[in-house]
């Protein structure tokens, strides 16, 4: 082996070690939570680091499916349905309203366009807790604070800036000629949008739907502050409530967090390619 080759090999070896260190960091919490979820002893306190605990079983999963919310009698199916409603509603409304608005920003040069885009950007960086006080008061007066619909509206509003930004960036890359051809062929603007632009923008729409869904599925802070009836609680709130207690049943918590995050992780990996290009396109594109 030549000296040069040896140096390259050593360099690769070193880099592999470096990458493996970070892989270990990245998956350590995941392994820990899987291990805890399989522990049969309904431990409140784990004392060893083992990947597969002795007598591993799915008992914790069954327990949380049967009786998910401590302190209130509400079924897993009910919580799941609430979460699906909130997440699905948020995804649907944000893609519907986001796409139409993004189309206008992409294709029309109307007075107020620049100000509109900038105001969406300002809202994008505004954290939910900064307007929590007035939102709480307003939704209370409108009598929708303690309802899932109030949540859907709040989440849609916080998902829209990204949805519009992301979709506008994508629409900009769809050649105008396609639309013009459709207009010449007798389409009006509406059908050109629904039949030409939308079908060509599936990747960006998929990402927008995913982000809206994720927002609704994982948000717990507004939900926890606004909702009071256990009947309308979500999965995210349930998980938060589990940790809030002094004696966290750790295997139950672990099993539940896996159940809640698994759908998101699966969809995320399926759409990963689009997420990356969507995020970088929206930001980097000139």
């Amino acid at each position, binding site marked *: 082996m030549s000296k040069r080759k040896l140096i390259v090999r050593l360099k*690769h070896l070193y880099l592999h070690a*470096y*990458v493996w260190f*970070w*892989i270990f960091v*990245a*998956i*350590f*919490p995941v392994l*820990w939570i899987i291990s805890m979820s399989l522990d049969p002893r309904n431990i409140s*306190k*784990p*004392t060893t*680091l083992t990947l597969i605990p002795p007598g591993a079983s799915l008992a914790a999963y069954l327990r949380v499916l049967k009786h998910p919310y401590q302190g209130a009698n509400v079924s897993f199916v009910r919580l799941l349905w609430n979460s699906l409603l909130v997440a699905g509603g948020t995804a649907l*409304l944000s893609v*519907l*309203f986001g796409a*139409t*608005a993004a*189309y*206008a*920003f992409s*294709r*029309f*040069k*109307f*007075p107020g366009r620049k100000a*509109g*885009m900038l105001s969406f*950007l*300002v809202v994008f*960086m505004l*954290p939910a*807790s*900064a*307007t929590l*006080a*007035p939102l*709480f*008061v307003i939704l209370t007066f409108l009598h929708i604070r303690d309802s899932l619909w109030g949540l859907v509206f*709040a989440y*849609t*509003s*916080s998902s*829209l800036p990204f949805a519009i930004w992301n979709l506008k960036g994508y629409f900009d890359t769809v050649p105008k000629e396609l639309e013009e051809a459709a207009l010449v062929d007798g389409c009006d603007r509406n059908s050109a949008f629904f039949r030409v632009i939308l079908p060509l923008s599936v990747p960006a729409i998929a990402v927008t739907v995913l982000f809206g869904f994720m927002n609704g599925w*994982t948000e*717990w*802070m507004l939900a926890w*502050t606004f909702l009071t009836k256990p009947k309308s609680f979500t999965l995210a709130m349930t*998980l938060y409530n589990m940790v809030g207690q002094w004696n*966290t049943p*750790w295997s139950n*918590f672990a099993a539940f*967090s896996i159940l809640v*995050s698994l759908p*998101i*992780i699966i969809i*995320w990996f399926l759409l990963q390619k689009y997420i*990356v290009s969507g995020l*970088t396109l929206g930001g980097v594109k000139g």
Partner: protein
Amino acid sequence: MVDYSDIGLWEKIRRNKLAYKYILPAALVMAIVTAYPIVYEVWMAFTNFSIVNLKNPHPAFVGLRNFIMILKNQVPLENFNFWRTLGFNVIWTVVNVFFHVTIGISLAMALNTPKFALKKLYRALLIIPWAVPSYISALIWRNMFDTQFGAVNLLLAKLGLPHNIAWLTNPNAPIKFLSILPYAFYADLITNVWLGFPFMMVVATGALQSIPKELYEAARIDGASEAGQFFHITLPLIRFAMMPAIMLGVIWTFNQFNIIYLVSGGGPLGETEILVTQAYKLVNPGGLFGIASAFGLVVFLILLGITLFTNRITKATESAL
């Protein structure tokens, strides 16, 4: 797009009627749930709005009292200290983004090495922290930082290192001259670095792949060292692609509610509080709606400043407009 520059404003608006119709639904939702609350917040900020006013919305006008109470740390909430929170928030953001970017770029470069084995598998594994919903990651890490039974201390024990660290409850600083940063800061930091490096790695990978290979060949022929290539080719060329991502990272980290609130809870003694967690606590459990509104406005102004400032550096949005 047709150039309408020679016609009047009203005519421009009339000709673009369809555009406004397309924007209307989004604008309506945002007006009700975002814009109106901001306006309402301005009014509330000058009143002594409290829980009782939820039934009777006629609070008294108090002028600038709420703002003065915030700036003078006189808010009746445990451990409230606006200036410490603001300073901590800035340190928190800078340190986090620094680690996100350096780790992200270093991993992207390692995986971009020619003929590197198992690249795809490695990338998929490294991206896992990004795919897990952040509030679940935060809850898991909080659990892992438990003093007696947490995975972090168990791991340290296995490695023969000091392992009775009260990560979340010890108010003292582990590094003496960084006395304002308690153990909980490092717990939050580890969690958030874990959470944030994959995003920067992915962005850096894209940026690295767009650099023409010929540049490196030319540099090698000219006898440039690896370090020289990094500082004179790689870094200047990925800077532009990284800037919008860094700006996004700054805003995300500055407002990283889930990690701070769920891992350290802002404690011990409010030492790891950031602005958004403080804003939340003023409402729940504080119930101090008037002060919370004033606080929200202050946060809003600070963020506006940061956005305009970073936007000027990166010019990220100008090109997109």
